[in-house]
Structure formats: structure tokens, C-alpha cells
């Protein structure tokens, strides 16, 4: 049993997920993690599935999806990355909002990377002139949280956008 990464992106229409997952189920593949959304009206799906099929067989099974040329489908074998929860780190939520301009994501994520931080999830949305970034960030346990937040604010100031970094607290009930 190996892992296969599948991406589907393109023109949105009802039934894409039903069709794609039926193709995967037909090969006996188990859909493990996935995320799907609309980006600027384009359907986008990434998923990791496990099974005994070769990636080429997966692409063949999903070929009908792409038959009209409006969806792109790809399948690639990927290694098992193991337990993602083993790192010694603390979770934060990073938010950015302000006037749109090129370079916001690269500047902000560069600060996070320089601090040894790892981004585990990131979404951007552009509506009118308003640009919004929300990211889940793991900072190393030894990182100076206030220094990172200060560096982010400084970069935000240069870009003319507001940047906040706050601890992500989970209450276990």
C-alpha cells in the first residue's frame, strides 16, 4: 500500500468531487486527507489516498473528468511522511489584512521562515482592494514570540498592511 497525491483543478461544475472520488473508490483507494475549495471560481482539490494502484492507473481512471479539457488531473506517488505531531513547537494564528499589492505573502512568510517557523495552513482571499491572509504557524518552542510579532508588524508597516500573530489555544474538554 502506497500513498498517491491527486490534484484536480479547473472549471467548476456540480459533480466533480462525486466523479473523482468514485474513480478512486473504483480502484480501491482510500481517501485519507483532502482539501477542496473554490479559488476565484475555479475548483481546486488536493488529496492523499492510499492503495495499491499505480499513479498512471489513477490518472487513467480520472481521465473522463478531464475529457472536455476544462479540468486538469494529476496523480503522483508520494512518500509517507510519518507523524506530523512530533515537533517541539507552539501553534499560532497569523492574520494579515490591508490594501492589495504584490509581495505581501512572500514578505510575511519570509519573517516566519527566518524565525524557524513552519506554516501548516494558509489561505488568502482578495475581495475588491482588500487582501486577507490567514495562516496557521508553528513556531519553535524556543522562539521569541514578541520578537517575531514585532518583525511581522514592521514588515506589515512597510507594506501598509496590518499583521497580527496570536497564540492558537485549544481547550480540551
Amino acid at each position: 500500500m502506497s500513498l498517491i497525491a491527486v490534484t484536480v483543478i479547473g472549471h467548476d461544475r456540480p459533480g466533480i468531487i462525486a466523479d473523482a472520488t468514485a474513480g478512486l473508490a473504483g480502484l480501491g483507494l482510500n481517501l485519507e486527507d483532502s482539501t477542496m475549495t473554490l479559488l476565484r471560481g475555479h475548483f481546486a482539490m488536493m488529496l492523499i489516498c492510499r492503495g495499491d494502484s499505480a499513479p498512471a492507473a489513477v490518472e487513467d481512471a480520472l481521465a473522463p473528468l478531464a475529457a472536455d479539457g476544462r479540468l486538469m488531473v494529476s496523480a503522483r506517488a508520494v512518500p509517507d511522511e510519518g507523524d506530523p505531531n512530533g515537533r517541539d513547537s507552539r501553534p499560532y494564528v497569523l492574520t494579515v489584512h490591508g490594501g492589495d499589492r504584490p509581495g505581501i505573502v512572500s514578505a510575511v512568510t519570509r519573517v516566519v521562515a527566518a524565525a524557524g517557523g513552519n506554516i501548516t495552513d494558509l489561505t488568502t482571499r482578495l475581495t475588491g482592494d482588500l487582501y486577507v491572509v490567514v495562516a496557521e504557524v508553528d513556531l519553535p518552542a524556543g522562539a521569541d514570540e514578541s520578537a517575531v510579532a514585532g518583525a511581522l508588524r514592521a514588515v506589515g508597516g512597510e507594506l501598509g498592511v496590518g499583521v497580527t500573530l496570536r497564540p492558537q489555544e485549544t481547550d480540551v474538554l
Partner: protein
Amino acid sequence: MSIADWTEADLGVAGRVLPVVRAPAPVLSAPSPPVDPADPAVVQLAADLVETMRVSPGCVGLAAVQVGVAANIFCVDVSTHPKTRTSHGTFALCNAEVVDASRKEKGREGCMSVPDLTGDVKRATRLTVRGTVPGSGDEVVIETDAFEARALQHEIDHCAGFLFLDRVAGAHAVYPRQTYL
């Protein structure tokens, strides 16, 4: 009586530590039948829930289904949690129901029965709950807020067969758990 005056010593039996059941155990997804608060088995279960909550790091509430028993009873103790405003200390409650709920706020929840995931859930921050006290069978009405309100709703959901996963705010509101207590 005031539930704030209650302690597990009122039950008159020693609690035992029970193993905590994890999803997808079916008992977590079925509504619990009402219980007779005076039933000695219910009194023992209340003591067991409090004892199991006490020995579980970070645990601020535990429902009977989480120890594998389909019974409408849970215990709560948020007295040491930093997000607590109002606290009624340690208490157990049978057949609890929400009487009034308002001022919803989103918060990220984890659960001992779903150890590897967390999720964003909207819960009322002003809450009135009615239930009966195990042992005496006294009916009590609890008015609370903030974190105790969230804990009560989480436990009442357990008794109704719902996990926080049934309440998450949206398709991207479930996350891998990052920190373990």
C-alpha cells in the same frame, strides 16, 4: 441546594479510574438514556467520572459515554482553567438540559475522545442549564458564562450523542492537534 457546595464526597462512594473511549466507538454517537439520580449504579458512575476526570491531565469535564456507558450524566470542573470566569467547582449532573443560551463565540476545542483533532466551535457564552444531582436527586439550575458554559455545552452534547466534530464552524475548521497535555 447550590451546586457550588457539592463535592464528590456527597456521593458516599469511592470513585474508580475508568478507561476513556475514543471515536469512532459507537457509544459516542448515540444519545444517552435518562438516568435515575438515586440509582446506586448512577451514584457509583458519578464518582467514577469525577475520579477519571481528576487523573486525566487538563480534563475539565467527562461524560458517561466517554467511559463507554450510555447514561445521561457528566461531571465538570473548570475551576483551575485560565479562561474561566464563573465556576461552580466540581459537580456532576444527570439529565441536564439547556434552558437558555446566548452570546455565541467561536473557540477551538479538543476532546479526550478525539485525541488527534481539534475544531472551531461556536458556543453560547451565557448559559442556563437545568439538571439533577446524582445521589440526592435535587434539581438545580446553573447560570454560568465563558469557559464553564462551553464545557457544559460540550458535555451535554456528549450525552446527546454529539462530538465537537458535529458542531464545527465549517469545512476548514478541523485541524490536526498540535499540543498534547
